[in-house]
């Protein structure tokens, strides 16, 4: 290329040379991940989603630094007060600070949504990966079981579990995991069923590498894309479900502040008509958070498209 020797290189050329030298030295070996990250962040909705998500998450985590009130503290001298400098979003029926309750409630709601989505994802992936790789009777049995879980209406499962186990945070988590693992399992299973036929898998088998190492270490990374998307979408769905179930009085026990339990106060027609600050702000926060997570999920889906790696 540079046969006409003393051509002066432009600055751009030189920087390209430097990049190439780095590449040759293997220093930029994480380029692929950077590429999909760059692609993700170049999507404006996904970036907005990340920012919104972080704002809500961080204010919930650092709630004690932001509001001076205890979300459980009843103040009978300040019932149903409208927003003011003292109580930014007013107080509820028993005088608790609504802003404090939204921030502290976010901790529980996000924990339930994200926690059960991630737990369902881990469970679904762990089972789907190995059973699809090994096939055989185990795979056939798990597949049938997952069909039962998918066909079973969630609300009946909830009523059943609540009536047997009673209302508690853990029970709600268990219910969400029980209803959430099956779609993730099937997603991973479908991907692994096609990946197991790839020749790099057979090469590992020809070297006698053990089954779990092949399944979890070598096949799984290529099957994870769609599941990460599903985890974000389930997070949003579970947060909505928590709000819905708590509103019906089937979710987390009422004394624990969650977004759903805060909303629960609007059960009362008078509050709905006269005290908007009790239900409107928390409704907006739930919508904003669910929207943010959905934007992130869509962004992940676009950027993790395996056909565009390369």
């Amino acid at each position, binding site marked *: 290329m540079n046969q006409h020797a003393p051509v002066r290189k432009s600055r751009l050329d030189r920087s390209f040379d430097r990049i190439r030298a780095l590449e040759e030295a293997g220093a930029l*070996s994480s380029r692929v991940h950077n590429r999909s990250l760059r692609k993700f962040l170049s999507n404006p909705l996904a970036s907005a989603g990340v920012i919104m998500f972080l704002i809500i998450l961080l204010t919930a985590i650092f709630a004690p630094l932001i509001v001076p009130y205890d979300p459980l503290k009843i103040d009978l001298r300040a019932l149903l007060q409208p927003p003011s400098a003292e109580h930014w979003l007013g107080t509820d029926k028993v005088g608790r600070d609504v802003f404090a309750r939204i921030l502290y409630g976010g901790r529980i709601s996000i924990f339930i949504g994200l926690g059960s989505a991630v737990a369902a994802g881990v469970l679904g992936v762990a089972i789907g990966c190995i059973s699809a790789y090994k096939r055989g009777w185990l795979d056939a049995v798990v597949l049938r079981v997952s069909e039962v879980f998918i066909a079973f209406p969630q609300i009946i499962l909830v009523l059943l579990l609540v009536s047997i186990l009673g209302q508690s945070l853990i029970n709600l988590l268990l219910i969400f995991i029980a209803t959430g693992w099956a779609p993730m399992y099937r997603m991973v299973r479908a991907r692994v069923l096609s990946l197991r036929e790839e020749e790099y898998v057979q090469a*590992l088998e*020809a070297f006698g*590498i053990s089954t779990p190492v092949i399944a979890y270490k070598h096949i799984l990374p290529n099957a994870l894309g769609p599941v990460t998307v599903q985890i974000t979408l389930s997070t949003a769905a579970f947060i909505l479900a928590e709000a819905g179930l708590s509103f019906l009085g089937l979710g987390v026990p009422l004394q624990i502040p969650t977004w759903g339990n805060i909303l629960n106060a609007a059960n009362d027609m008078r509050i709905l008509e006269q005290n908007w600050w009790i239900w409107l702000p928390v409704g907006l926060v739930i919508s904003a958070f669910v929207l943010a997570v959905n934007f992130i999920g869509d962004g992940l889906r676009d950027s993790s498209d395996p056909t565009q790696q*390369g």
Partner: protein
Amino acid sequence: MNDQLPENILELRGLKTHYPIRGGVFRRTVDSIKAVDGVDLSVRRGEVLGLVGESGCGKSTLGKSILRLALSTAGEIVFSSENGEVDLRQLTRAELFPYRRRLQIIFQDPHSSLNPAFTIFTAFDDVLKRYGYGDKEARRAVLGDLFEAVNMPRHYIDRYPHEFSGGQRQRIGIARALAVDPELIVCDEPVSALDASIQAQVLKLLQNLRQERNLTYIFITHDLSVTEYFCDRIAVMYLGKIVEIAKSEEIFGTTLHPYTQALISAIPVADLDRKSKRIVLEGDVPSPVSPPSGCAFHPRCRFATDICRQQTPKLQPSKDYPKDHLVACHRVEELGVLGHA
């Protein structure tokens, strides 16, 4: 090559690989695909044995059955070494492991043979660890050496598969198989997916490696024109069975089986220094689920008679021809090479 060792490195005896077809609510086995249907074949130490046939004839399945990547259902896979003869089919996973380093495979599709998620070294490191190649520096050096053995710069081991061309990927696949210093390599159509110019390059590389490392190859291909100069012997496969096997010159010079004759006549004339009329095979390859009775080739054979439809011909030598030229055809003696015309 080595006096103490038996002449045959591998012997297949009555090998069958039937895939079950399941149906109904209880997923019972209702039928089977007879991909490999009774193969007797011996592979001599140090030779290149070509395994030729149309796609779907079971040649890849046969190759994979030898390495137990496909589950054979009957017969013996006898491997000979300084430890004597072992039937690989009878071994447990643990007992099989020491033989994993003696038998390896090179794959057909350069795009699926490397894991897109990792650099070459990361993906291969589990194998190097499993075979005890020392600490990380030592393992990197081993892979670097292998890359150099297939004419690639050693620092390429830190690249991702998508950074390589098809020919380069195929050479990486070869380097991978060499890592454990194997004696026998099943080459499953290693050049079929490559451009003609690159094919020649990769074949040359395989040839050099064989000489340097005393390798034995089973060279699977659907393209007879590649085999004539590359293989010492050629076995022709049709619907899960070997129908003819002989030295390369024999197969091309005195072709005995009507199916082999049709395959050879289909090679473009420019590739061969001989004139031949193309024999067009009628109909499609029958389903390996229910292969035709008698000689499985009879529905497409222009010489078929009643006996062909009723009795399965044995793979055996035929008089007037060398002892190691085996053919499975009832009418070979009366037809002889005349069928070639």
